């Protein structure tokens, strides 16, 4: 799968490429609007990560160009300017998602896989990993074809970890993914731990192998 990163901060690009490469994504990079414009006309990408503020222009123009050329590449806007206006403008211009900086790379990775899934397998939205099958439309999980009753939070947690398969995901990244701004409160309570514990219990009871490993006090890892 091919991803284009349009971002002028070289260090950030380096980290993103390093992280996403492990996911068997092929990453290409454009540091300027001009480079990006050239690339989007020649190639098709599964997902474009688009920074709005570029040294030689505005990322929103790239969005416009994609639209004009009837390109259907998935686009996630990543920006330091977390403004409602930009977000609405971007989404209206056909962006699929909007991620303000700073962000967790596992969060980015989960958003990319969601966009790619939507673009590639429209209709057939199933996520399968060994004995686990997730119906993304119905938001149901089954193990060995038997449904497992997960709460909304446990379901989100599972999808998030599966999207970052074989990757350590920190507790903070999970907290922010599950609760957004309310994550601020989570530090006080060991909230993630109880969700993980409950989810693991339900999954193993349904006959699922224990894929979720604790990585010291840092986070969790879905290994399969």
């Amino acid at each position: 799968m091919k991803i284009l990163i349009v971002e002028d901060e070289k260090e950030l690009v380096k980290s993103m490429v390093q992280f996403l490469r492990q996911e068997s994504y092929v990453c290409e990079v454009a540091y300027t609007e001009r480079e990006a414009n050239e690339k989007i006309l020649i190639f098709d990408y599964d997902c474009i990560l688009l920074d709005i503020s570029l040294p030689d222009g505005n990322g929103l123009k790239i969005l416009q160009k994609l639209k004009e050329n009837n390109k259907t590449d998935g686009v996630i806007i990543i920006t330091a300017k977390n403004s409602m206006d930009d977000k609405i403008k971007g989404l209206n211009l056909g962006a699929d998602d909007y991620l303000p900086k700073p962000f967790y790379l596992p969060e980015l990775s989960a958003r990319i896989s969601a966009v790619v899934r939507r673009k590639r397998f429209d209709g057939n939205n199933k996520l399968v990993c060994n004995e686990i099958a997730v119906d993304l439309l119905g938001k149901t999980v089954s193990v060995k074809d038997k449904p497992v009753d997960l709460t909304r939070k446990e379901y989100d947690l599972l999808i998030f970890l599966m999207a970052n398969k074989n990757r350590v995901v920190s507790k903070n990244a999970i907290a922010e993914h599950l609760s957004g701004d309310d994550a601020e409160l989570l530090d006080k309570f060991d909230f993630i731990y109880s969700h993980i514990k409950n989810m693991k219990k339900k999954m193993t009871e349904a006959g699922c192998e224990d894929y979720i490993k604790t990585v010291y006090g840092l986070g969790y890892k879905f290994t399969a």
Partner: protein
Amino acid sequence: MRLLQVSIRSLLLYAFVLVLISIPVSFYSVRTILKEEVDESLLLHTNQFLQHIKKFESLDDLETDLTVLDQLSYNIKIKPIDSTLNTKEFQTIYLYDSMEQEQRPFRQLSSSVEIKGQPYLLTIRMSLIGNDELVFAIGSVQILLIVLLIAGLLMINRSLNKKLWKPFYRILERLKAYQLDKSESFQTEETNIVEFDDLNRTAIHLMERNRKIFLEQKEFIENASHELQTPLAIFQSKLDNLMQNPSMSESDAMTIAELEETAQRMSRLNKNLLLLSKIDNEQFGALHDIELSKLINSLIDNVKSIAEEEEINWNVKLNPLHIKANQTLTEILLTNLIHNAIRHNVNGGKVSILLESKTLTISNTGKALQMNQDKMFERFSKEGVAENSTGLGLAIVKKICESNHYSLSYEFGKGTHTFSISF
């Protein structure tokens, strides 16, 4: 005391002193001049009399005539004396006037003369009554003039006060009404008075400069926060990669976790600063129709599972209330208050949220405040050692209330903190 009162006061004082001095001075100087005039004419009369008498020296019974003259004349007295001392004496005397029945002032000159070899004392008198009247007439005219002068000065000053100082008071009004963060720019008008125009220009200059600095400062905070987002993103992304290292030891993992904690704190701080600056810059313009009870309920649902860990009991009574406000800001306002109520709660405590008749009351059980109550809404004021708190939550609450003209109040009693907002 007004400026013009001060100036008129010294003017009046000066005029008063001048009058006090000028009345006796002019009175005495006029009198002296008149007296000298009278003395001169007395001298003249005496000389003329002697010259006239000389024509009659050939008369034999001149002595008898002189006695008769002395008897008949009121103003001229002539009496024989023994010695022939050559004296000339001016005197002011008072004589009884039987007609007017009062003492009348006279000026007289007594001189010893020699008529037909016989010494006489010749006394010639002149009434001073006319002179005194003149002196009084001049004095009263003078007083009248001074009264008119002072009255005129006062009146001119009063009308000048109204007219002349009007631009000054207008400038003053404008300066009082000027708010650095609200008013657009400082407007004044031409007055044709050099000083006031100067004042206008100086005021405009000062305002413009302050406003520029203020705007730059505002912009700086926003820009600084924006610029920090990217390095924070890089920092976080490096950490995310670092923790993928399969040979990571437990102590490495702990260090990374701590670093991530710090990075998160920085990004929250930054986010909140940016938010404050955006509210300051009024970048949340769009108003929406918001049903508060629905919004509050959904926000409570979001945090309920978190609050369960602390066994917090909820007491929620919400009447529907529609307000016109910015959706984002309203959510932030309510979220911050709800977070605050959970964060500063005790285990097994209570949070009650009541919404009735345009007033929202959020109260929670908790320990009494250690800091000053007034300081609570200030930026970076934290209660205790809450590491995960940025100390900006309530500052943001206050800012949002201010920008929307909601009244915000806080009180503590019986182990319960209560925040009330009237929409």
